[in-house]
């Protein structure tokens, strides 16, 4: 048999998948592994989102954020310009609080991202 013919024949022989009596079991095992992996991923996302949210909430509560918001609403009668400049000043004040302002925003950002990711995945899943 000529070499190219034989190689083509060999490729065809390799391309014919063997039949396995336990093929259904194999497929089911892969599906179960996929489901387990998916469930673990969802649980991890939920835990991470929850933890990030808790950290964010704790950080927000431990700052003077609520006071600043109340102050902002009190100044509602001021002119728009005054309000904006006051808001900017308050915003900066929050950012520069001694209780690690960066951590607040980082945690809040992470919480939002984690929550959004979780919601997206949950919607896709159900």
């Amino acid at each position, binding site marked *: *048999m000529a070499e190219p013919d034989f190689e083509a024949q060999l490729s065809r022989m*390799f391309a014919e*998948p063997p039949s396995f009596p336990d*093929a259904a079991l194999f497929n089911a095992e892969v599906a179960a592994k*996929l489901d387990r992996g998916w469930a673990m991923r969802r649980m991890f996302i939920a835990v991470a989102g929850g933890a990030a949210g808790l950290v964010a909430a704790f950080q927000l509560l431990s700052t003077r954020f609520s006071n600043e918001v109340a102050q902002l609403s009190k100044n509602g009668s001021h002119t728009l310009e005054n309000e904006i400049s006051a808001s900017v000043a308050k915003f900066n004040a929050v950012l520069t609080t001694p209780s690690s302002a960066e951590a607040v925003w980082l945690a809040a950002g992470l919480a939002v991202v984690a929550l959004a990711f979780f919601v997206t995945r949950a919607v896709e899943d159900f």
Partner: protein
Amino acid sequence: MGMERPPTGHDVELAAQAAAGDRRAYGELVRRHGSAVRGLLRRMGADSATADDLAQDAFMTGFEQVAEFRGEGTFGAWIKKIAARLYLKKVKREARLIFSDTVEPVEDVMVRDASKDAASRIDLDEALKSLSRGERLCVSLCYGADWSHAEAAEALNIPIGTVKSHVKRGLDKLRAKLARPEEGARREAHG
């Protein structure tokens, strides 16, 4: 409550759905290509338990990476490549990748069925047993997983010339083994 119908469509469409998180679509790809991957791993020399474990790992890895499958080649070739790499990683880790001429006994794991193509499969699986581990790996990678000689050389970390010589010797042995039934049949026809 009726049973859900399995997803239909081309492999590329199913892969795109799987990339979007559709596990049922991926399950259909597993159903279509599971036996081919399991068969390839056995033909490369893995025992049945190892082959099935690695085939499952390959499909799990495939699910994680399915977004990278763009349909340039076939899904079958893509998933076989993942499976072959996993097997090579395993034999390298176990330091069992020895390119000697020794023919190692390999478990006879292929299923014999009564279909028309079964004879050629059995022939191939029987014939592969006459190859050394290196020949068997190189031939299986190049003809079973559609790897180029260069890809096989890189994955096996051996010179490309070594791959070519293993393939050539492997093909010679397979040709001799696979030709025998034909010759026998011819003799019977003439006799």
